[in-house]
């Protein structure tokens, strides 16, 4: 067994767009802190971009003991080549024992490149992260397999750092605390624009797109709605609460609502404060995507529907009567 004692600490990559962090970075910082506490080491954040100093400060408020900041004009847009080079520079200097990325398009793109270069093992799309205490200090990175029917723990014994990408919405961020103290370390990184072949010509932000992963209140509907029309009724409840509409795959596959609304294994994993499951039976491929919501309310006419097992409050009955009644009650309570 090689001697890995120089590798200590947990490093978390903070993904952002134009300086606005994706939630998953803060969630992984929270989980990274839990792992670091068990290992009695620091949790560190990696921020790469241009003019992103405020993000480094924000990382401290979310729990980072130290933040490595790589800031250069060539790093304005995410591009694999300069970002992977900058990340590797930090990893070589800092020697963390664990490095975590969000399992987003960018996180997977970047982590895949870095792990091959280093080289080391990379566990994909994890939903559980734990560590064995000293002396083994092994990361136990667990991920769903075979359409979420099984879970498997992947280990990386012979290489350091141990790397993993992790699904958004699964882990809990620490509460933001402006009084937290931490250190920001500027990393000197030189690269010429002429060395970078890729040019980002444009980014077309999906304006109409609802952001399920970031939503705090979701009112989701399933096959029980019977068609596209009743989603308007869900939208009214969502509007009354300040939330967005989600859906099961059955509703999406039927063409009643767009895929960007889909919650679950092949849709989004969400972690809102409040989740309504309306006319959704509660198949495991759906519940893996929403079971970590803080408060779950299920409405279904079938008292034996499995969704009631994961719900905190359940109402048995006809959704076409219950949903408008709740919307009405919310509106009147708000005193509109």
């Amino acid at each position, binding site marked *: 067994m090689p001697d890995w004692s120089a590798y200590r600490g947990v490093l978390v990559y903070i993904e952002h*767009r134009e300086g606005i962090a*994706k939630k998953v970075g803060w969630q992984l910082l929270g989980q990274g802190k839990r792992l670091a506490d068990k290992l009695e080491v620091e949790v560190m954040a990696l921020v790469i971009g241009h003019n992103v100093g405020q993000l480094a400060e924000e990382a401290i408020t979310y729990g980072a003991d130290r933040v490595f900041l790589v800031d250069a004009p060539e790093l304005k847009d995410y*591009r694999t080549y300069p970002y992977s080079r900058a990340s590797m520079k930090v990893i070589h200097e800092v020697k963390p024992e664990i490095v975590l990325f969000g399992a*987003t*398009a960018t996180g*997977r*793109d970047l982590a*895949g*490149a870095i*792990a*091959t270069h280093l080289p080391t*093992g*990379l566990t*994909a799309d994890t939903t559980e992260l734990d560590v064995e205490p000293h002396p083994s200090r092994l990361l136990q990175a667990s991920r*769903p*397999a*075979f*359409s979420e*029917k*099984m*879970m*498997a723990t*992947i280990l*990386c014994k012979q*290489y350091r750092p141990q790397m993993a990408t992790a699904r958004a919405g699964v882990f809990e961020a620490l509460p933001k605390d402006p009084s937290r103290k931490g250190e920001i370390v500027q990393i000197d990184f030189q690269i010429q624009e002429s060395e970078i072949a*890729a*040019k980002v*010509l*444009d*980014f*077309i932000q999906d304006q109409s*797109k609802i952001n399920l*992963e970031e939503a705090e*209140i979701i009112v989701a509907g399933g096959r029980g709605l019977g068609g596209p029309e009743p989603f308007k009724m869900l939208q009214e409840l969502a509007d009354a609460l*300040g939330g967005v509409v989600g859906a099961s795959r059955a509703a999406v596959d039927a063409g009643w609502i767009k895929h960007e609304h889909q919650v679950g294994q092949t849709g989004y994993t969400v972690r809102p404060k*409040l989740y309504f499951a309306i006319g959704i039976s509660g198949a*495991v491929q759906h519940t*893996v995507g929403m079971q970590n919501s803080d*408060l779950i*309310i299920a409405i279904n006419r079938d008292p034996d529907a499995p969704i*009631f*097992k*994961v*719900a*905190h*409050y*359940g*109402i048995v*009955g006809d959704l076409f*009567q*219950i949903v408008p*009644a*709740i919307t*009405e*009650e*919310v509106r009147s*309570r*708000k*005193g*509109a």
Partner: protein
Amino acid sequence: MLHIVVCVKQVPDSREIRIDPKTNTLIRIGVPAIVNFYDLHGLEEALVLREKYGGRITVVCMGPPPAEKALKQCISLGADDAVLVTDRGFAGADTLATSYVLAESIKKIAETWGPVDIVFTGKQTLDGDTGQVGPGIACRLDLEQLTYVQKVVGINMETRRITVHRHLEDGVEVVETKLPVLLTALKELNTVRRASMPGMLRAAQFKPVVWTTQDFPNLDRSKIGLKGSPTIVGRSWVPEQKAANTEMIEGDDVKVKARTLVDKLWQTDLPARFGWDQKAQG
């Protein structure tokens, strides 16, 4: 003229896999082996690019001998050549070892059929589902890497630059880079064609080129198969659904139930957090 390599993996159709409720193990018997469907979108795009710019398409698969069937399917769709990379020594590979063998194979394909301009992989597979092999190959061959491609806008053959649309969670990125490049394919990229009659006839006769460890004189044995794989699968188990302490809301009619539920909501911190308790303005 372009030389395009398409990486295809034969996978069990994981949608068909069931769990034996008694032993909590996978029931693999009778699960059909299919070409990972993202890879077929990579092949389709290669066919479209060949129609537009001319050139040739070589398909490569690392897998056990029955994976030959996957390659025949690619031939029936119009690929020019196909290579099966197969050896017991390759078994048990994780993504690091897989990308090593595929990168070595692509080097050998370049020696055999000419320099490679574009490599396609799928976005991810149905079984391992990591999406890591594409970036791994790009890295090892020093190719430009554009993942999650939903559209190839075009290639400027003079400047040898390619423009694509990448699909990200929050929008679409238009990006341009130089060849040679590795692209990972999404299903939005195209609609996969059906095999033509001549294609099927050719496939029926077709025998892919087979390469084993013997065919790679410079292969580093410590980087292949189980030995070359840093990740190991430890425990596996069937997850249980999280059971909450469910409280059923009872009531004589809908209004009572709705009111009871909303009362519960108003007892949480949600109204304060989301400003529901502030009387509407004006």
